[in-house]
């Protein structure tokens, strides 16, 4: 089928509402993101300037600026939760695809934010630290912080370009060609916006009427707007698809407002007058909203058709799953009622598919195995030996280790096997009469042939212990005479144990007796 699908559970809100809520939440988030970035850059710049002019001991404007960072970043984080929640609902597949394609960077965001927040906050709240330490912490904090929007833009650029997803995978999980430039310009464009936002905020809140500081903020704003004009052109030029006229009109509103802000700031600088909050606040909204709306409209153009497709694919897929949903629920109910805390359940669930429900080695999977599962019903062994096999498994066979059950459960399993099969019990006598001559012959064959692997004492030679599977230790592990006879006669498939059917029956019984007499 090879079609990408949406998640199958219903969305809690209708799509248009999710879409609009997402836009509003995103605008609020971005506003504080810009204040956070702007404040951080400004504070660092002011620190350098204060240091250069040797005024680090005086009242520190850079610290005052940085103290607002705690507020901005806290609000940016909390206001970021809503768009994160909403975008994961309304653009589930594009967003998660962007995230998973760049997963390591996305996870890194958390570490970067922690480093940056803790460093900036301690710089803001400690009264005085050595300038070199301040410089060092400041650089780390700033670099970490500025990397974050780069990653966000990366994920969003990817989410908005579904036709590039496969290329990104083929390119080794990297952006390719034109999209790389688009990403870079968009990122730098945001930093420009942060300069403007930071400058505007601190113009009104931390300059405290100092004309020199105010002028500095005005220059800062001018620099930001000019940076944005240049990068805006580049962002526009590298857009993957040329936008329609309606989008261009919204964008022009934003650009015109920005131009007006620039003009107001120029006027304020040249005539040495103050900016009026009543004018500037609405103007900032008039810049931010159309600009983000432009972004939103471009995103909608590329993603809304895909969304429709994903949803209709999901409907088809859901239909094909329909007949499986009841059986799945029935299985689930069975699972809930199966408690792996007793030997019986553990045997039935974890052992019987190979060893068989009757412990005769004839489980449903037995025919798939070259080394047949042992008929546990025929085993007579010590608890210690069984325990060891259960914990370590048997190399060279399918028998895995069962260390995922703790000690008590393993013992309960052994107890269950003992109560059912007498696995810890005594061996019965040999069911056939063995003539002394046959026994003599058997003794000779054992020491000449069998002992080369099994060892004279039946514990297995050191070499044979390294076989896969290794020889068993006959002093602690034996089989009922009939089963032992069968193995001696036919061999054990998939192991070093070959058939001795050429020996007379009496001699074979004699071998069984030798082996079983070794049991302690």
């Amino acid at each position, binding site marked *: 089928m090879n079609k990408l699908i949406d998640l199958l559970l219903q969305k809690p809100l209708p799509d248009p509402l999710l879409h609009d809520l997402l836009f509003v939440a995103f605008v609020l988030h971005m506003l504080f993101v810009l204040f956070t970035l702007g404040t951080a850059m400004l504070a660092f710049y002011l620190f350098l300037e204060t240091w250069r002019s040797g005024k680090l001991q005086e009242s520190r404007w850079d610290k005052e600026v940085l103290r607002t960072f705690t507020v901005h970043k806290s609000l940016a984080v909390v206001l970021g939760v809503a768009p994160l929640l909403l975008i994961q609902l309304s653009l589930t597949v594009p967003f998660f695809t962007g995230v998973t394609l760049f997963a390591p960077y996305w996870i890194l965001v958390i570490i970067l934010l922690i480093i940056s927040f803790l460093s900036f906050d301690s710089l803001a709240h400690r009264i005085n630290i050595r300038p070199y330490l301040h410089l060092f912490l400041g650089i780390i904090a700033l670099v970490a912080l500025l990397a974050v929007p780069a990653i966000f833009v990366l994920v969003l650029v990817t989410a908005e370009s579904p036709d590039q997803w496969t290329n990104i995978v083929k390119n080794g999980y990297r952006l390719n060609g034109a999209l790389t430039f688009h990403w870079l310009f968009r990122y730098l464009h945001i930093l420009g916006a942060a300069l403007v936002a930071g400058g505007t905020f601190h113009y009104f809140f931390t300059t405290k009427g100092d004309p020199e500081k105010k002028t500095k903020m005005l220059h800062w704003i001018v620099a930001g707007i000019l940076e944005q004009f240049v990068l805006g052109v580049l962002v526009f030029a590298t857009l993957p698809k040329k936008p329609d006229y309606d989008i261009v009109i919204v964008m022009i509103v934003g650009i015109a407002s920005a131009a007006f802000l620039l003009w107001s700031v120029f006027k304020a600088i040249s005539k040495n007058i103050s900016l009026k909050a009543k004018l500037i606040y609405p103007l900032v909204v008039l810049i931010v909203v159309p600009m983000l709306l432009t972004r939103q409209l471009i995103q909608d153009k590329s993603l809304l058709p895909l969304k429709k497709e994903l949803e209709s694919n999901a409907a088809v897929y859901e239909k094909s799953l329909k007949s499986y949903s009841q059986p799945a629920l029935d299985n689930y109910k069975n699972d809930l009622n199966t408690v*792996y805390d007793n030997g019986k359940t553990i045997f039935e669930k974890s052992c019987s598919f190979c060893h068989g429900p009757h412990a005769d080695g004839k489980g449903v999977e037995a025919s798939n195995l070259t080394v047949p599962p042992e008929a546990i019903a025929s085993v007579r062994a010590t608890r210690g030996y069984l325990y060891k096999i259960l914990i370590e498994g048997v190399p060279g066979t399918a*028998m895995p280790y069962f260390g995922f059950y703790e000690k008590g459960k393993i013992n309960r399993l052994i107890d269950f096997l003992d109560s059912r099969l007498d696995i810890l019990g005594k061996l019965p006598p040999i069911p056939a009469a063995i003539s002394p001559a046959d026994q003599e012959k058997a003794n000779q064959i054992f020491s000449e042939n069998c002992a080369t692997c099994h060892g004279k004492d039946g514990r297995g030679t050191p070499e044979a212990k390294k076989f896969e599977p290794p020889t068993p230790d006959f002093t602690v592990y034996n089989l009922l005479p009939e089963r032992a006879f069968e193995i001696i006669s036919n061999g054990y498939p998939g192991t070093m144990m070959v058939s001795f059917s050429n020996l007379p029956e009496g001699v074979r019984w004699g071998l069984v007796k030798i082996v079983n007499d070794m049991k302690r």
Partner: protein
Amino acid sequence: MEFPIFQVPYLGNGMTIALNAVLHLIIVQGITIGVISMIALAEYIGFKKSSEHWENFAKRLLNPTLIIVTGLGSVTGVGIWFITSALSPKGIGLMLRIFFWPWFVEWLVFAVEVIVILLYYFTWEKWSGLKKKQHIYLGFGYSLLAIISAVLITGILGFMLTSDGWPWNRSFWSAFFNPSFTPQLFLRLGIAFGLGSVFTSAYLLFTRQDPMFRKEALRLFGKVALVFLLIGLLSTWWYFSVVPSRFKTHAVFSVLTSHFSQHPEFFWFLNIFGVLILALFSFTALTRSVSISRLLVIPAILFYCCFITEYERVREFIRGPFLLPGYLYSNQVQLDESLFWKENGALKNSYWYSQAGNSADTTAQGVYLFAQNCSSCHTIGGLNDIKDRLRGRTEDGIYVILGNTHQMVPFMPPFSGTEAERRVLSTFLYRLTSGEIKLKAPSRFMFQKGKS
């Protein structure tokens, strides 16, 4: 699969989510709820008794608390979300659809929390005299909001283990107010105030304080520690009495892991020892013995952190093999989808596999099937290494085990794919375990060309 697969190298996905989540829970329970409540309490006592000591203690403790709560607490909280978006996108995406409203309300509460804590911090000097009362309300108001957050998140976390009727009726309310909701809430609050009082005691014991005030405050925090230790213990017992036996029986193993599973006595010894340390600290604090409390307070904090880690580990582990009970396995395959793939094939229903371009190559198929079925828990060469798990098994043995994972190991999901795909994966795993195949980029499951 709907999304490209990524695995964190060495640590694996579960451990990465856990490291961040445990740090978050230690901070939000111990500090955001616990310490800030103690600060509000101290400020209140200072006001009642007109005591400079209590007032200054509260005010000075708020400074580092604010930095940790807004810098580390909230970021690691969002971090859980970030990390699961990358490592378990389908799981978190589905959870958001089931629990949109609690999450949305939680967002509103979180926003108010941030505003209140900032106000609380920045108005400490300004709101004095007549406005002091309002400032104290702000502190307690913050604690209340933090508790509401805990309520909202507890409903969601409880659902993952005790879904009650949700798989059948898909009812939000039965999912949210599931059987383990109330005991878990009490357990979390017990831990929150318990750890909060121990953290606060540590600050009290290791900073410069008036000796008389220190003894007086120590007695109070010791009292709080003891009461909430008891609440914590009782609700632990209550909590495990409502967890279905199917899951509960894996609790001890979840803590011991296969490294220590044959020494269950470690589990009981360490847990009892930890509780004794906490109880002992509470008593010495109650009796105002400063020097012994100093000795015990750090072990008490460490044991509280261990208990938080242990509880989250148990809760997250024993729900295996399910991520969303009755709907999604821990490897992000739906229960019904698993049955569908068994008949119709996993690879041909996978968009990202079809985009990979080398769909005829069996090694590519094997590695993708591994990524899809196993990689949410097993790494190649890191924690819970699949090569360690399969070492010594024959190829046909791996094939048989793969077909029975779900019943053989009660917390493993079934293999989701056809018989042919099961064969492909077992061959891949056998060759991987024997060193024949080497991966060059384990996090994206790419193998070395020419070795296939």
